[in-house]
């Protein structure tokens, strides 16, 4: 099973809602990891999350479903409830990294919904989104955030800075190895 695009993931969810085959879709998705890359590709390094997902799709990672968005929004809480594991991928200001440092230029850490910030705009934090998903839709997914350092955000340009590009490459390598080392139970076997 290869990775799915945003569109196909959406179609799966819509189909289970409309044709009553909820259990089948849930079973398929529970064996997968949902990777949500978010940010605005038109704002230089803010596009690190979407670019991460684009490369995951290009390389057809196993057992992942991907989504991209400009930002996390409340309806993502519904989708998350269909997965056992979620990885949020976002650009980070270097000074803000506070997770477990898995190497230079990015961090990978668990998301805790125990203390969530109230959301202040149409966008949500991963913590807030997980809290929303658990409270309203009984989500049981474990969540992680892969925060990749970016440096240039101020211009309207669809291009990553060279330093962000390096960080992206390292983060992709790390995440792929991490997923291989941490398969989900009930993982679908491939022929």
């Amino acid at each position, binding site marked *: 099973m290869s990775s799915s695009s*945003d*569109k196909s993931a*959406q179609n799966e969810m*819509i*189909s289970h*809602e*409309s044709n009553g085959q909820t259990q089948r879709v849930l079973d398929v998705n529970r064996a997968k990891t949902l990777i949500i890359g978010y*940010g*605005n*590709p*038109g*704002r230089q*390094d*803010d596009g690190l999350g979407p670019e991460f997902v684009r490369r995951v799709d290009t390389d057809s990672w196993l057992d992942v479903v991907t*989504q*991209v*968005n*400009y*930002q996390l*929004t*409340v*309806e993502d*809480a*519904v989708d998350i409830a269909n997965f056992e594991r979620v990885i949020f991928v*976002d*650009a*980070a*200001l270097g*000074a*803000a*990294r506070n997770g477990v440092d898995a190497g230079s230029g990015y961090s990978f850490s668990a998301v805790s*919904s*125990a*203390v*969530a*910030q*109230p*959301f*202040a*705009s*149409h*966008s949500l934090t991963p913590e807030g989104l997980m*809290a*929303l998903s*658990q*409270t*309203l839709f009984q989500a049981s997914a474990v969540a992680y955030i892969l*925060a990749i350092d*970016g440096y240039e*955000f101020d*211009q*309207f*340009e*669809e291009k990553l800075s060279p330093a962000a590009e390096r960080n992206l490459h390292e983060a992709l390598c790390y995440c792929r190895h991490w997923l291989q080392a941490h398969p989900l139970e009930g993982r679908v076997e491939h022929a």
Partner: protein
Amino acid sequence: MESRKARIVEIEPVTRVEGHGKVTVHLDEHNNVSEARLHIVEFRGFERFIRGRLLWEVPVIVQRLCGICPVSHHIAAAKAMDMIVGVDQLTPTAEKMRRLMHYGQIMQSNVLHFFHLSSPDLLFGFDAAAKKRNIFEVIKQFPDLAKQGVLMRKYGQEVILHTAGKKIHGTGAIPGGINKNLSLKERDALLVDVDLMMSWAQNAVQVAKNYTLDHLPLVEQFANFKSSHMSLVREDGALDLYHGNLRAVDAAGNIIFDQMDYRDFNDYLMEEVRPWSYMKFPFIKSRGNVDGWYRVGPLARMNTVSFIDTPLANQEFEAFRRFGQGKPVSMTLGYHWARMIEVLHCVEKIKELLHDPDLQGTDLRLKGERREEGIAVIEAPRGSLFHHYKVDENDQVTYCNLIVSTTHNNTAMNRAVTDVAKKYLSGQKTITEKMLNHIEVAVRAYDPCLSCATHALGQMPLVVEVLDAEGKIVDRGSQFAEIETPGLT
């Protein structure tokens, strides 16, 4: 001994609005408010970014401008490019697909604003403790309402997905038409829940209306000021969010201009630059720069249109107009009621379109005689959205000017901030977080989209700074405190 120096109070950024905004409240030596201003940190450079791009790329690229309303920019840009490719009337399938996309966008945007951004203020009070005044408390006390908000938002996003081709960065609208129709499978998927959405939308109107009527003493004195209003209207005066001509009315409801072709907007509107703000201040030329300011968005639309062409929303529209006794409703908090009437209208329109066989048509795109200039106006969730482009003989953009809804409302939001600051902050020895929230409630009612800022991790929380006359910080605090969500792991 108390300081008797003039002070400036800053709220930066304003919370639960899009992007970055800052409010400065200027206090005199007696702690009375002398002036208040909303500063919007508008991202610049888009015009440069778009210059040189090919016209067919523009409806896709403009979605990079805003993470909140990319679909509105997508549709407005495509509509402007229709003019450039010489298409003045789309095929029925193309226009109806675009309309369906647009109604989905307005529905989901208005719903999120009301249910999740504004409901904490409305349900718990503007001066409730900051720890209570958030969505998690809404979930705790009103779980059904919170869940309905999420699922209505998701429904609107699914309408967008099926019409634009993608949830974000859609490609559905193209110069001269649309690149896909609605398959029967997609139609049937959307029909499953449309009646449920209708009943929830009707309930949402009642929640907003009852809030207004139950809190009249507050609502009528909170940022309630007279103004002109402007929006598109259909040729018969009906609400039309996708296409029409411009109508402006004054505070008494008298017509300033009507059925004005938006392609001539430069003859009717001007933009003023003020030294303290990045954002321009548009005004109606005939009224001048002092009195010519106006409001746009849901409240303005309810004040300009003659009727709504869907029965349930029109019933609510008539109740709204009766409340205003035939005159424009001027209460800032009236935006919430108006916004929910529009949600109901959008759901009615979505249902009507889903039963229209034109959506399965295959005549998707037209071509006409090429022009060098394209101008479009649509009614976006927050108000009138203007896109204006010029292209050269190589199809490359040479000029781009956008007037977004938040810019139209610039003066109105500054009025609202000043009004509330004078009422709630003047003469106070101590400026509390609850007092400052009143200012934010007034700004939030307009649902301003300041989304030009990036959202990367590490963004500053809300900071309040109090400065004395010499610019020295005498107080500083953060309003963006963490809240506990007990019971969650």
